[in-house]
């Protein structure tokens, strides 16, 4: 039997937790389950609406011969984007964390402003820069680095460039947050014990900010896999990703079950890195407790 105080505590917990939990269960969990369910529904021909009964038609049509190329492109762009963002975020986070507090907050402000700036505007800025009549195209053609007829827009490389541009602040923030808590005297200790600066960086600093690194990789990789806006505006047909196919099946072909099938696949693809990160972070727990005891 629970005491009166315990019952009251449970009541308070439910009162405060229920509204947000109910909202997100209704508008996040249930809709995600619907996506999986609709994958196995037939289409009413001509209208694109969802028919009655169950079918494996969509499931089989996901074997579409065009898909492997798009899946492959989605993967390589996402992995390259994550790698480039991490390679830039680690030195930047290291540098900012070692500054004096006042300079640190000034630099972080400069990193945060793009984070708040409209996503569409930042993409559009690149579209004007790379436009055939824009400044970069003009400069490169004048330097004879590109053919004046060449198109800088609408290919997979442009998609990658703009993805790094928009995702980089998301990678710097967690790396910086971890580096700020890192005890830099450990690097000096490693140097005193004879480690080269490079060795100290890789063997002491990187493991020390591991949690921030994992977060940075996760917050870049997962949204990259589902990119839609950047390939749609900057990619053209040779820069299409899975996200574009989902939107096409929904709005152009009006085939909701097919769009659901692709979304279900993407959901599963996104769960793999999330589960991986969770495992890595749980594995770290005992190790951390030991250092905290010491």
């Amino acid at each position, binding site marked *: 039997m629970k005491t009166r105080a315990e019952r009251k505590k449970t009541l*308070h*917990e439910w009162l405060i*937790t229920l*509204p*947000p*939990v109910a*909202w*997100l*269960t209704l*508008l*996040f969990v249930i*809709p995600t389950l619907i*996506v999986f369910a*609709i994958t196995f529904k037939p289409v009413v021909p001509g209208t694109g609406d969802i028919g009655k009964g169950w079918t494996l038609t969509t499931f089989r049509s996901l074997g579409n011969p065009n898909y492997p190329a798009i899946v492959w492109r989605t993967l390589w762009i996402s992995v390259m984007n994550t790698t480039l963002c991490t390679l*830039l975020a680690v*030195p*930047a986070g290291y*540098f900012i964390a070692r500054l004096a507090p006042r300079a640190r907050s000034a630099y972080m*402000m*400069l*990193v945060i402003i*793009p984070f*708040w*700036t*409209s*996503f*569409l*505007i*930042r993409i559009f*800025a*690149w*579209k*004007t*820069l790379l436009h055939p*009549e*824009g*400044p970069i195209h*003009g400069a490169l053609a004048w330097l004879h680095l590109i053919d004046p007829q060449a198109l800088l827009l609408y290919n997979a490389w442009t998609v990658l460039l703009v993805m790094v*541009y928009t995702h*980089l602040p998301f990678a*710097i923030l967690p790396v910086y947050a971890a580096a700020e808590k890192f005890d830099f005297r450990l690097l*000096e200790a490693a140097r005193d014990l004879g480690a080269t*600066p490079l060795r100290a960086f890789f063997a002491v600093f990187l493991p020390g900010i591991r949690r921030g690194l994992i977060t940075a990789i996760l*917050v870049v990789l*997962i*949204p990259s*896999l*589902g*990119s*839609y*806006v950047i390939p*749609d*505006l900057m990619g053209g047909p040779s820069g299409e990703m899975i*996200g574009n196919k989902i939107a096409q099946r929904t709005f152009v072909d009006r085939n*909701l079950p097919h769009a659901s099938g692709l*979304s279900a696949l*993407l*959901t599963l693809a*996104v769960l793999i890195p*999330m589960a991986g990160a969770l495992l890595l972070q749980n594995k770290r727990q005992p190790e951390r407790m030991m250092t905290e005891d010491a």
Partner: protein
Amino acid sequence: MKHSRLPLNVTLFVLVFFYLPILVLVVNSFNAARFGSGWEGFTLMWYRKLLDQPNVWHALSNTLIIATGATLISMVLGTMSAFGLHRYTDALQKYHFFLIYTPLVIPEILMGMSLLLFFIALGMQLGLFTIFLAHVTFCISYVAMVVLGRLQDFDFSLVEAAQDLGATWWTTLWRVLLPLLMPGIISGGLLAFTLSIDDYVITFFVAGPGSSTLPLYIYSMIKHSKDMPIINALSTILLALTATTVFFSQHLTKETRT
């Protein structure tokens, strides 16, 4: 000891990379040249043309209505969520944490697609109301994370003092905890507001006829590459608004930290 100059150079490169495109865009919004390949004199022509665009005001008012509503509701729900997550640690809170954390990382297109199917399954008319519901859904997590951060730094001896002096749970909540946390809740709300104003993908999936928002409007202009200097002008105005919001939000952060 001599430090490597690489981190400094990378940081400077990153900042130039961040700001150069935005700077070019702002300068070009005052440039008489159509494609910004050179400077052809100062003009406010693009701003005047922007004001003459027929649908821009309608899109702006839709955007503001949705953002205001979604911000208020997500501030309430997000704050409740942060309190629950901070105070209790049982199985319910594990599920609760999963619900708050997952929308922060999953691709927006998945949320847009699943909400579209949900609204269709319920037979709901797509429009401002469905956009509002969708925006609250992704804003809750951001507000909850910001408020949770503040709760972790919060001095709970103030709460204990109030309770020692005989205040009930409700009195403590309304008279001590909420007023002290208000700067955090407002800065969470400001984040929700900017995210809502800026959202394209989710809005695109759940919007109906006549419910165009500013991002939907800008997107179709970018997509068709028409009137690019007018988008420069519109972007410059939005950038100024964002900078003001960040300034206020940072100001709030500073006040609570000292």
